[in-house]
């Protein structure tokens, strides 16, 4: 299934940061949703800003428009404010993209666990993200750091407890 671009992607002004405040807000909202759905479609968890600028996400070769570095930073900053992005370094050159926030992931995992009647059982983290049972689930293949964060989110809600085991980490759901 190929990625479906929003209509704005072929609208040249989309690639210029609009000076009008109202217009800019709408534009940024469109960019945020585009960036998130693009990452989700391609299962991207970390982004390098330089690379991102060259990727189709910010670079529409068909209409020869590219979002400027400055504008990308603005979009990313907007994402960060919404809780979907975290910078990995001070220079803001690499970032974690969370197209689902940890709480959302946690919810999904917990739903799966309770649906399968496995509350009160213990899983290794590897089992959850790469096990046969979870194949076909959205959180299958989730990167470790993201998984851990989702479980931490569950833990604060009191729905799970992370346990340290000999060869890594495990989790018990309540």
């Amino acid at each position: 299934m190929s990625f479906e671009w929003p209509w704005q992607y072929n609208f040249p002004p989309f690639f210029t940061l609009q000076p009008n405040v109202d217009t800019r807000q709408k534009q940024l909202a469109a960019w945020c949703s585009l960036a998130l759905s693009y990452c989700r479609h391609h299962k991207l968890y970390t982004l390098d800003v330089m690379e991102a600028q060259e990727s189709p996400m910010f670079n529409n070769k068909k209409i020869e428009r590219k979002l400027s570095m400055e504008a990308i930073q603005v979009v990313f900053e907007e994402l960060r404010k919404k809780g979907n992005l975290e910078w990995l370094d001070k220079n803001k050159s690499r970032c974690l993209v969370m197209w689902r926030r940890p709480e959302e992931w946690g919810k999904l995992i917990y739903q799966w666990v309770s649906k399968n009647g496995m509350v009160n059982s213990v899983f290794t983290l590897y089992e959850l993200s790469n096990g046969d049972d979870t194949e076909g689930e959205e959180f299958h293949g989730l990167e470790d750091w993201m998984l851990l964060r989702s479980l931490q989110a569950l833990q604060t809600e009191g729905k799970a407890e992370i346990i340290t085991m000999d060869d890594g980490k495990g989790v018990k759901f309540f």
Partner: protein
Amino acid sequence: MDRFSWSNGLLEINETLVIQQRGVRLYDGDDKAKLDVGVVLLSTHRLIWRDVKNHECCIAMPLSQIIFFEEQAAGIGKSAKIVIHLHPVPANKEPGPYQQSKYSYIKLSFKEHGQIEFYRRLTEEMTQKRWESTPVSQPIPTGTGSQAGKTRAVGIVGIERKIEERRKETDKNISEAFEDLSKLMVKAKEMVELSRSIANKIKDKQGDITEDETIRFKSYLLSMGIANPVTRETHGSGTNYHMQLAKQLGDMLQAPLEERGGMMALTEVYCLVNRARGMELLSPEDLVNACKMFESLKLPLRLRVFDSGVMVVQLQSHSEEEMIASALDNVSDKGSLTAEEFAKLLGLSVLLSKERLLLAEKMGHLCRDDSVEGLRFYPNLF
């Protein structure tokens, strides 16, 4: 050496130059004078010495001061010299480089030769005594007096005096130049007067010449100048002047504004007005001040300043909503427009068309695409 006085180095009317010799150093008696090597000039009346680098430094002594003179041959490391014995200092002598001297003679040391010829000519002059037969038009001391007094000073005082003199000269030049200008302005008024009287004559003789000719002649007059321009002289300065000017501008600009779709850049207005006024030109400042009074005078015009700082004069009836709507219509029609394309479409200046587009953008009707190809405006689809 104390017999010398400062000089401007110019010859008097009846005075003629006999000979001059470069590379001569003066000796005060047996001592080297505190002056550098210079040019010595012998005229029919005076012995003059001028510094070779600083021509302001020039001293002179009347030949009548000389009693007698003798040659002193050159030796090893010594140049040939002429020793000149002098009368005592006269009472009314102008100041010179030396206030007093213990010697009653000076020496001319010829570093670059020429002493033989100089000696011969000096002997000639001393025997002919031409200074007695043809006295100079003015006595030399007064001739070199006040004027020389200004130029003779050396050092910082000299420089300061020179600057002061130059400043006075510039002052004089400027005031002369402005005198000419005010004469021109007087003439300009006459010209305007003339054109008005012609216009009146045309009015009187309307029957005699054809309608067509009248119109043509009037248009000539108009292109020359307004019949009775409001000037600072006729209406004083300040607010009253600007008010009158604003009223006149209001009458004048109505038609051109309507022609141009209700808006003109201030620069355009400035050109138009000054072309019509001919000689009584307006300053940009006066124009702006007059335009600022449009609204308080309830004239059908107003001065509008765009966010970018561009100033325009627009008709009061000129509605902004309409302007924005038309910009949006045009852009929607074409899909997208640059300021240049829009200007061509409306027959406006690029500056003004851009202002319109920006205004429409500000209102959220348009959005921009800023790429290497330039700034394009699109309908705001966001």
